[in-house]
């Protein structure tokens, strides 16, 4: 069942399209990641999807309702966590939840049950009395998410929800998203981090307001054209310059290794000579699978 459907939407600011002919579809229980450089239009798109901005052209249907005509039906079904979601730092974890519950008229036993459930999955229960301003980055993000879940939204829109959060907390955050998904929520999330994109059902690469490509993470990684090899060397700056001057090769340093990129049709054997000239022995390099970031950058450089 399609829960989120944006068809051919365009939003223009002062003559410049921030989102252009963009289409997006998400089924019930699906998690779609949106990734693009700064200024790609992700936040504008999200604001359109939440009905905070009116689209110039196109159509948005959420849970079967038309956003232009039936927004009142949509509002209770949506949760939107913007990039700088505001918690009240002087209020406790519980008071923040109570506040957001109040906005949706949730009170009494209903509120009690909901809080108990949110504490359970977020692990925030023991910190209920702690002031939000004194939480760690990871806990703050979990509280912000919890505030957005208090009214049981069917559709969740999260704009870079894990920026500044450590890897263990980020993993926990994504485990929560997975549970929400399993219980039927549809989630659209933007992120600059490819390890998170890899956890989505589908991802869309967005650039200058448009969708460049989309697919499952595996399909996207497979769109990379070329081969990648890893050489365990620490090159001098001069070697790096000469390496990049070799025809048919691009490269980048990667910690104590160098990644060498060649075209799909190219045979590494033919590059034995020039590579050995910069200290790379092709008998000692190993192929590495191209990752999502490689594909993303290739798309952006086109």
């Amino acid at each position, binding site marked *: 069942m399609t829960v989120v459907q944006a068809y051919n939407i365009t939003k223009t600011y002062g003559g410049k399209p921030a989102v252009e002919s963009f289409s997006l579809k998400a089924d019930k229980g699906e998690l779609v990641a949106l990734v693009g450089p700064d200024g*790609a239009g992700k936040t504008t798109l999200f604001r359109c999807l939440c009905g905070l901005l009116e689209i110039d052209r196109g159509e948005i249907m959420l849970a079967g309702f038309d956003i232009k005509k039936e927004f009142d039906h949509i509002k209770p079904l949506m949760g939107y966590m913007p990039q700088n979601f505001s918690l009240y730092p002087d209020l406790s974890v519980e008071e923040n939840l109570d506040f957001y519950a109040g906005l949706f008229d949730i009170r009494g036993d209903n509120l009690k049950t909901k809080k108990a459930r949110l504490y359970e999955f977020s692990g925030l229960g023991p910190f209920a009395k702690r002031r939000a301003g004194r939480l760690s980055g990871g806990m703050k993000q979990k509280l912000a998410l919890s505030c957005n879940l208090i009214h049981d939204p069917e559709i969740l829109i999260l704009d870079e929800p894990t920026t500044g959060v*450590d890897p263990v907390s980020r993993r926990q955050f994504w485990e929560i998203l997975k549970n929400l998904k399993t219980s039927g929520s549809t989630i659209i999330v933007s992120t*600059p981090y490819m390890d998170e994109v890899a956890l989505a059902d589908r991802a869309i690469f967005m650039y200058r307001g448009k969708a460049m490509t989309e697919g499952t993470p595996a399909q996207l990684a497979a769109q990379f054209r070329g081969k990648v090899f890893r050489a365990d060397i620490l090159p001098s700056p001069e070697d790096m310059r000469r390496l990049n001057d070799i025809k048919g090769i691009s490269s980048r*340093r*990667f910690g104590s290794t160098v990644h060498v990129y060649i075209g799909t049709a190219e045979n590494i054997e033919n590059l034995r000579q020039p590579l050995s000239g910069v200290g790379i022995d092709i008998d000692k390099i190993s192929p590495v699978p191209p990752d999502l970031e490689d594909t993303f950058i290739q798309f952006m450089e086109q």
Partner: protein
Amino acid sequence: MPAAVIIDNLTKRFGPFTAVDKISLTVETGEIFGFLGANGAGKTTAIRMLCGLLLPTSGHGRVGGFDIFKESDKIKKTIGYMSQKFSLYGDLTAYENLWFYGSIYQLKNSVLKDRINELSESLGLTEFLKQKSGPLPLGWRQRLALAASLLHRPQILFLDEPTGGVDPVFRRKFWEVLYGLADSGTTLFVTTHYMDEAEYCRRISIMHRGKIIEMGPPHELIARHGKPDLQELFIDLIREKDKNAQD
């Protein structure tokens, strides 16, 4: 060439709480070293000691050849510090921000002018110099912050989550700049929560509850522990340690 950072059994206690517990490490000149750990592991406390902002409880340490107990003033002039939360003045132009930070280091006007031009060129900031910093895209503000931290030509640069929230294309360009700095002999000491960024470091350490629990080149650590990538390695290590601590 002497090592840029040498610490031995460095410890900081706050009352009964040990924030940094006998950590030892050496960072070579021109090395890019990744200093990782979960929130609250003690990274910030350790860095504040290395920058001469906090006196250690015990242990030894030298940064840029200077003793962290006795020569913190000299350390402050030797190092640079750039953070994701680096304060640029949003209402000042990029140029005015650089001028302000250069003045703090008491650089002569003529010297400062040359360095601003030089850094703007190498970091690709020239066309933004006359623009106000506040509205600049995040990636540019971070480059501007990097330029500000380099004006006094520090031998050692501490980078605290330098590319948090920056898109992958910008992040790759930023790291090319960092490799360029390392090539010219600047030592880079980087903290980050992002393992793809950590993989750009020549060596990393992982900190947990005040202690360094693992150290080495990223791909060697991944291979040694038999994990698919640094992310899995990090999460598994931290979770395992947390579990042991609870048992």
